[in-house]
């Protein structure tokens, strides 16, 4: 093996360790089991351990002889300092800190280690007092102070020794083992030594171990009273110089003693203060701790102070370069710092906010204390999502508030930073913030859904062109009908739901008027509005045809009120035909709001009662168009029919049904639809018709509707009202439907109408769904074709390769 020169301290330490591992008491070979445990306790990645094993020659020999063991220990120390593993470095590296073993190996072991380190630390203390960096004297090599073990702990030792904890009370390591700390249990080991660290307090908070360790350093300067620090009982308060608490101030490696006295002192001061408070805090916390990554108040205060030194504005950012310099001072390997950065820069903006900085600092402290870096940012360190709404208050204050690393705390501090963020890096911040919040809340999805829901209600009308968007009660319907009749093409139904709608409708009608549907006559306004479901008017029409017009059939939307939104999306699927159908109907100009329910295109969905099925009138699409046109004229006269449910009633339904069937046929659809719509039921019917229309393609459903219509008709007939429906209806129907008996829509048949419209809607839905799936299939096929073509193209392209 390579010759190895050890310092006294090292020699002692190593021999102790060897003895520890020498379970067989051979004095020559350390048992592999123990050795491996020991190496594992060193918390190095397994590859490193393997490498060490190879380098030291144990693999060659098959066992760990004393020299191999020593070499291995030295290599571990080297590895732990972040230096590359080289055989040459065995002897060349000076001031190498003693290897740290965190797993609570043996108490004795820990004790030894602690002893060594402590002594070193202690020795350092005095020295540190004098020189800024006592430590530097290389671990104990230079034991300038002549400490017992003079374990020279280089500046790094600050970290390491978390252990040297000058622990006044050798608390039985148990605390150390705070379960949480899965990572290095170094604290425990440190604890062991009952060194009396100037600070003392040991154990206890293992949890805060990392922090504690650091803090203990602080304490140390204070000389400790800090009994409770507990964290690292063994931590001997780092010599003042060491303060650099995480050796941040220790810019230079140990070899530079007395480095920055001033800085050290400053830091010391800060630390001491912090540590004092921290100690108590730690103690408290350790008892109830469960989160190894929690940041205590003192710690946070310290971090904040450090943050201030770099960036006076607590709500501002620390740019990456400044942070890099700062954290480089901690002497952690760049790779680890890089990892810490990745963990803590939550919004990936290349800068650290106060919270991110605290998290990073905390991680550095932890790492220095021997804790392994987590793969993901621990919950307690996660910066609160930036609160876009937060108006930033005094982050400091919030930060001060019991931080404990709870995310909540972060928020407050984050919020201040947010604003600054926005100011400072508007795009970055906003995007980041939004990104953060966005991602957290997946707002997009939410918004999407909301959007959909919003649309849904609106759409129904347009698509369906329900003449009566509103819920129609029999009486209302009648009233409306009357109104309609009275007003003729005037949709405005002064009364009832229709009325409410009417105003809208009328407006809509005005607007749309044949906007979308060419054929639509002014009459069709009502319809056109609905027709225009395809157009922007849709919303308006929707309103009108609320009656059950389910917005765009495909859209689930549950139409607000009324019921049957039969064909919600006429506009969509049947846009072509439907529109035409609707146009036709529109032309018919169902002024009546009720009629509006029917989008023109929709072939006159059989009245709710009947239409549901028959009207699927897909045929209506094509036919609807035609029908609409044909019906339009009819529709005009029909409008009254629509409006007047009573008419339908009176109407022997013959017309209605006929109209209904026509609607299906497209022309019929318009008519009956309209008529239907006019009635309260009309909505339903219309919807159903619309649905049927939408089905577009469902083929003539005329026959089916007939029966339905007849039913309606009968219902209508039942209805007492008999107003002008009859005559008008007949006209309309005859003209439009011509075949199917109009379904009497008696107002009183709301329920049935509703059901019918529901049925229609469902039909339409089905049809549309089918259509959708077919189109999807087509799309897939086309995509595949495209892909294959692309591939061919690629292959054909001459490629330079290989």
């Amino acid at each position, binding site marked *: 093996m390579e010759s190895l020169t050890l310092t006294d301290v090292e020699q002692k330490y190593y021999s102790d360790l060897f003895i520890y591992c020498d379970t067989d008491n051979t004095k020559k070979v350390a048992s592999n089991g123990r050795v491996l445990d020991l190496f594992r306790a060193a918390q190095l990645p397994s590859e490193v351990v393997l490498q060490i094993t190879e380098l030291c020659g144990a693999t060659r020999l098959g066992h760990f002889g004393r020299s191999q063991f020593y070499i291995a220990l030295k290599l571990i120390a080297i590895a732990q300092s972040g230096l590359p593993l080289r055989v040459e470095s065995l002897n060349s590296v000076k001031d190498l800190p003693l290897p740290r073993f965190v797993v609570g190996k043996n108490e004795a072991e820990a004790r030894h280690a602690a002893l060594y380190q402590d002594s070193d630390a202690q020795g350092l203390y005095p020295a540190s007092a004098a020189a800024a960096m006592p430590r530097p004297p290389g671990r104990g090599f230079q034991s300038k102070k002549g400490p017992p073990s003079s374990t020279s702990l280089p500046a790094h030792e600050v970290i390491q020794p978390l252990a040297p904890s000058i622990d006044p009370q050798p608390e039985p390591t148990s605390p150390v083992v705070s379960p949480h700390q899965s990572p290095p249990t170094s604290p425990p080991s440190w604890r062991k030594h009952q060194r009396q660290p100037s600070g003392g307090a040991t154990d206890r908070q293992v949890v805060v171990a990392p922090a504690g360790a650091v803090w203990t350093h602080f304490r140390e300067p204070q000389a400790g009273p800090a009994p409770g620090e507990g964290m690292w009982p063994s931590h001997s308060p780092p010599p003042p110089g060491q303060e650099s608490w995480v050796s941040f101030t220790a810019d230079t490696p140990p070899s530079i003693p007395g480095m920055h006295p001033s800085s050290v002192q400053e830091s010391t001061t800060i630390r001491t203060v912090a540590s004092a408070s921290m100690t108590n805090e730690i103690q408290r916390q350790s008892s109830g701790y469960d989160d190894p990554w929690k940041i205590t108040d003192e710690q946070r205060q310290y971090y904040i102070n450090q943050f201030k030194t770099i960036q006076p504005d607590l709500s501002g950012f620390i740019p*990456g*370069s400044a*942070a*890099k310099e700062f*954290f*480089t001072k901690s002497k952690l390997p*760049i*790779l680890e*710092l*890089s*990892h810490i*950065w*990745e963990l803590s*820069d939550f919004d*990936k*903006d*290349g800068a650290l906010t106060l919270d991110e900085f605290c998290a990073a600092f905390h991680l550095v402290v932890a790492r220095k204390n021997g804790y392994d870096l987590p*793969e993901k940012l621990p919950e307690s360190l996660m910066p609160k999502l930036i609160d876009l709404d937060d108006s930033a208050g005094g982050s400091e204050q919030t930060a001060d508030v019991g931080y404990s690393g709870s995310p909540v705390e972060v928020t407050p501090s984050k919020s201040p930073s947010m604003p600054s963020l926005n100011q400072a890096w508007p795009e970055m911040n906003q995007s980041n913030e939004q990104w953060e919040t966005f991602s957290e809340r997946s707002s997009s999805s939410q918004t999407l859904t909301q959007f959909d829901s919003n649309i849904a209600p609106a759409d129904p009308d347009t698509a369906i062109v329900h003449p009566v968007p509103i819920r129609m009660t029999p009486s209302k319907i009648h009233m409306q009908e009357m109104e309609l009749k009275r007003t003729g093409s005037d949709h405005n139904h002064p009364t009832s739901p229709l009325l409410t709608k009417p105003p809208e409708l009328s407006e809509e009608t005005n607007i749309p008027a044949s906007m979308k549907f060419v054929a639509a006559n002014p009459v069709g306004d009502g319809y056109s509005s609905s027709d225009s479901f395809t157009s922007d008017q849709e919303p308006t029409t929707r309103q009108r045809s609320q009656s059950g017009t389910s917005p765009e059939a495909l859209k689930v939307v549950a139409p607000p009120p009324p019921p049957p939104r039969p064909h919600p999306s006429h506009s969509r699927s049947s846009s072509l035909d439907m529109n035409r159908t609707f146009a036709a109907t529109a032309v018919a100009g169902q002024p009546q709001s009720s009629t509006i329910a029917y989008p023109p295109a929709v072939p006159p969905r059989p009245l709710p009662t009947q239409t549901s099925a028959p009207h699927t009138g897909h045929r209506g699409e094509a036919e609807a168009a035609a029908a609409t046109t044909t019906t339009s004229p009819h529709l005009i006269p029909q409008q009254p029919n629509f409006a007047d449910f009573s008419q339908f009633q009176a109407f022997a339904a013959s017309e209605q049904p006929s109209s209904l069937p026509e609607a299906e046929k497209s022309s019929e659809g318009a008519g009956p639809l309209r008529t239907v719509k006019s009635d309260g039921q009309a909505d339903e019917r219309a919807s159903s018709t619309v649905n049927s229309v939408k089905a577009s393609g469902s083929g003539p459903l005329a026959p089916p509707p007939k029966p339905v219509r007849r039913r309606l008709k009968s219902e209508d007939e039942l209805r007492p009202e008999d107003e002008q429906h009859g005559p008008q209806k007949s006209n309309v129907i005859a003209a439009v439907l011509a075949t199917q008996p109009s379904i009497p829509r008696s107002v009183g048949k709301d329920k049935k109408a509703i059901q019918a419209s529901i049925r229609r809607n469902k039909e339409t839905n089905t049809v549309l769904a089918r259509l959708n799936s077919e189109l999807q299939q087509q799309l897939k096929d086309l995509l595949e074709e495209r*892909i294959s073509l*692309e*591939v061919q193209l*690629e*292959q054909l392209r001459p*490629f*330079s*390769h*290989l």
Partner: protein
Amino acid sequence: MAVCIAVIAKENYPLYIRSLPTQNELKFHYTVHTSLDVVEEKISAVGKSVGDQRELYLGLLYPTEDYKVYGYVTNSKVKFVIVVDSSNTSLRDNEIRSMFRKLHNSFTDVMCNPFHNPGDTIQSKTFDGIVSGMMVPPG
């Protein structure tokens, strides 16, 4: 499923290259190296604009007997190369694009790290994680 993912710097030295362990890594190294020629050719061809997203994605560089090589170049001439096994379900173009997008995003994150010097090999665990995620599952 990507079997090999490589990030190559502007000067055509690899910043990061990773293959499925089971495969012969050297073969993939060669493949990626040769693909650089194709990348160069495409870059010079697509000279029109600085390059929008579309142009960043170079597409299938060349198919070989049992794998396909896709390329992507960033605005700073950092190239990403993905080698995909042909036996796997032929990945859609969009999937490859999304893979590149993810790679680009994580690469940006790595670059943002102040401790990372441009030109160093990428040693970010996050980046490794993302690459692993891409290598195992298809696409």
